[in-house]
């Protein structure tokens, strides 16, 4: 990571800002700090960052609102930090365009991993590929062939669409709503049992131990994450 990615940290707690600066700088990032929403938005408008780490509990404007505003022009990763464990807030954040989330207290290693993964997905998503390979699973988007350890696996069209979605977003949290919209269409947003059933199917076909999944990870009450190289 010598490219010196520039990260904007928006948090109202001075202690958290100082800690994040130290953590991120020691990991080789350039860091700018903002102590409230207004300053954060102003910074985001005037500079180009590679990613934003955004606290949801801001004193002046609600973090979700900040997220939505920045998302109107910025495509780069935004990771939300929240002291709220309320799943609703996180799901709203993710559905409003956040790339990932962390709840306080979090481990620094976890934060760095998420940041790295988000940056990589963003920076490599330019060239769509016909064949995606993640670990021992490979998927050919043209011929609809799926292989695990070189062995062909038979998937139904829906399972294939779901798997393709996961692989394209390896490492990223996908909310139930997002998955339903992408795979089944906007009318199916209420049918949340679909994702559970089909993820269960994929686990049976692709996981070594479906009861203890390594690829298709459940994010409590939020959605799923396909674990890539981490």
């Amino acid at each position, binding site marked *: 990571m010598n490219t010196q990615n520039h990260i904007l940290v928006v948090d109202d*707690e001075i*202690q*958290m800002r100082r*800690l994040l600066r*130290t*953590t991120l700088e*020691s990991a080789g990032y350039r860091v700018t700090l903002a102590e409230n929403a207004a300053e954060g938005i102003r910074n985001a408008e005037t500079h180009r960052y590679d990613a934003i780490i955004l606290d949801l*509990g801001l004193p002046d404007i609600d973090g979700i609102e900040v997220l939505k505003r920045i998302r109107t022009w910025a495509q780069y990763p935004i990771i939300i930090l929240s*002291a*709220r*464990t*309320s*799943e*609703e807030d996180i799901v709203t954040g993710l559905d409003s365009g956040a790339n990932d989330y962390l709840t*306080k*207290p*979090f*481990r*620094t*290693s976890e*934060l760095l991993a998420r940041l790295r993964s988000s940056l990589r997905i963003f920076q490599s998503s330019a060239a769509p590929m016909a064949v995606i390979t993640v670990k021992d699973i490979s998927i050919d988007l043209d011929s609809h062939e799926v292989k695990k350890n070189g062995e062909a696996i038979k998937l139904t069209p829906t399972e294939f669409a779901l798997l393709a979605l996961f692989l394209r977003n390896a490492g990223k949290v996908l909310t*139930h709503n997002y998955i339903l919209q992408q795979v089944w269409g906007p009318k199916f947003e209420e049918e*949340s*049992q679909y994702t*559970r*059933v089909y*993820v*269960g199917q994929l686990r049976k076909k692709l996981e070594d131990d*479906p*009861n*203890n*999944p390594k690829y298709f990870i*459940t994010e*409590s*009450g939020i959605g799923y994450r396909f674990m890539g190289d981490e």
Partner: protein
Amino acid sequence: MTTPSEYRPDPDALLQALKKEQEHSQRGKLKIFFGMCAGAGKTYDMLKSAHEVKSKGIDVVTGYIETHKRPETEALVAGLEIIPRKKIDYRGVELEEMDLDALLQRKPAIALVDELAHTNAPTSRHAKRYHDVLELLDNGINVYTTLNVQHLESRADTVAQITGSIVRETVPDSIFELADEVELIDISPEDLLKRLEEGKVYTPDRSKHAILNFFQKGNLTALREMSLRLTAERVDHQLRDYMQSKRITDTWKSGQRLLVGISPSPSSVSVIRWARRMAYTMNATWIAVYVETSKVLSDTAKVQVNSNIKLARELGAEIITTADENIASAMVRIAHQHNATQILVGKTTQRKIFGSTLLDSIIELSGDLDVYVVGEHDESTTKKKFTLPEFHSGILQYGISSLIIVIAALACYPLANYLGYQTVSLILLLIVALLPLIFGVGPVLLAAGLSAMLWNFFFIPPRFTFIIGLPQDILMFTMYFAIAAVTGTLTARIRAREKAVRLREAHSSALFSLTKQLTITKTQDEVANTAIENISRFFASDVTIFLSQPDGDIFTLAHPNSMYAVDEKEFSVAAWVYWNEKKAGKFTDTLPSASATYYPITGPRYPLGVLGVRARNGKQFTVDQESLLQNFIAQIASTLEREQLNDLARRTVIYAESEKLYKTLFNSISHELRTPIAAIVSASEGLREKIQSNTYQQEFVDEINTAAERLNRLVENLLDMTRLESGQLAPKLDWCDLRDIVNASLKKLEKELSGHSVTIEIAEDLPLMKLDFGLIEQAIANLLHNASQYTPAGTTITVLARQQEHTLVVIIRDNGPGFPAQALKKLFEKFYRVPGTRTGGTGLGLSIAKGFVEAHKGTIAASNHPNGGALFEIKIPMQP
């Protein structure tokens, strides 16, 4: 009028049939063992049937059996469970009645209740035993009962004619129709008399007296015929019902409707019964009409009207009351309005001098309606007594009106010589004509007579005799008397009519004023106040109101503005009314010993309250007042319902506000607590990366980290507990795969469980379930954490999950030391910690797990596994 098409059942009739079926499915079933008289063996047969069903494993209980000390019968009672009778002390006499409440509490499949027509002791809840039976049926209890033909309401008068003894204990025929099954217990009169002689029927000392009075062969044959015919009729009726429901059209009869008039006379009873019988055999519905005229009724007549109306209602008539001066035209009008096809009229014996009888007028007006004429016979013939025509004016009125005439006559006396005696008659006539403005018919007629006599005696020559000399004076005298009487009567009649109009006007204005006041009420309290005030003023009564509580139960305390104190007994009447949505209390058949009459205030979906009304003069309301009161109650009910809905809306707003406040507070506290912990955790972690391992520094950092994690867990527990305690915890149910939840819990506790081996056994066929992912995850995590803390490293923790019927069962088991016996009970209490365990824990984890599971309407239990180790079992009902 159109004739209904021959093949299509009337939709009303179909609905009726459907309703019958629906009611039947929830109601208990009624089986009547029906006989011609005592001694036929009904009780015996009922008990035998009871033993039969009992042998099939059905729960049969004896509610009330009268064995009459017959040994065979007593032997049969022996094998059945008996609900002890209730002992009632009434004026020093101890009476025994069926214990209705005990039966309702016991709720058997079948209750045996002997002697359906029995009249209960005066302080019982219901006046008659058949009311008790109806309540049992309403509560889904099947009833076996016995009944003799002479106790059927519609047969009572016939039986009285045949046997000469009046039957006082009767049941309405409707209960006979309500029965799902009627079993006729037939016995030939010869056999019965033989049994009687053998002393098998009554105890020997009573039987002689009984034989003489009742058990004569002729009587018995007639009774037998009646019971056979009734049963046959019923079968016929059932067949018709069946054909109707199956749309069998051959003998389809169109919707006939019979109309009968109710009069204030006791003889009306037999006409009403006739109508009922005709309607039944014709398979027709019937309407009973009471036409209120301006004629003032005596108190006895009022009571008679009420009881006639009640009889008609009990016999299944639709009751319509209307106000009209012309009874015949009112009856024909209602017949047309309600599509009646036949009118039933009693053969009146009284003849009117002018005009025609009621019968004549009805026939004249009836047009295409059929008119049936039936003989009326007065039921009260046995106790007939001569009654004077009713004059309602007080003695004072008679006195004053006479006095006025006397004074007028005295005043005229000196003038008679100048004016001539004819003129005096005109003066007196004027006064008689004016009298009705103040006085009733009686005093006016008296005044007319008196003035005629005075004129004759003091003025017509020869004076001071009643002799009239000249023929023209005789003519004058007769004319004078006729004119005085006619004028007086006519004026009085107009006045009475005016009074009726005024009364009606008063009623509508009272209703209007109530409605007007109700529209501006803003709370239930105000509605109750307005109701109490208006009813008490207009009905000259003391009024009490009970309202319903938000949870649907009745408030045990009367509304504070109520006008009389309610003791426990009165309240029990009100509560009965509330739950049964039927009127009860004084002047009714249910709990008549109450001091007031209680009316249900019924909303469209649930009861809204109960209104207690006690007239200050202690009298029963007239038909008129009763219907006005019903109107009042209807108005009050709709307003109360409006207010209850408003209250609900208000509460919802308050609740939402408090939820919002709570959320804000909760979020800010959790933010304040979590932020410093987050700082400590990430700082110590950052520090650890910068220092070398196996140094003192690293040990310090590890200590900081462990402490921070412990603090973090404590904060999380306290926050969870706060959510539980606040009552704001509403699970957000969504489809979940239990495997996911268990995995998430395990992931959360990766570090704590690193020393243990965890086995997961989740049934392959376990379906998705609607759960709150976070809450169940936390509950399972807390149980796992508990297991990890209380078992030595290296032991196995097992998580099992499966579906059992409609319940999800999750078991978390370890093979550690298990719980000490005394700890099992207290395990889920807040802050409870098993004595002697190591420190580091708040004792909140398990009670939080319990709270979260209970939020899903589930249960959680702890036990020791027989093979050792602690076992937690979570059971959650599955959402459909």
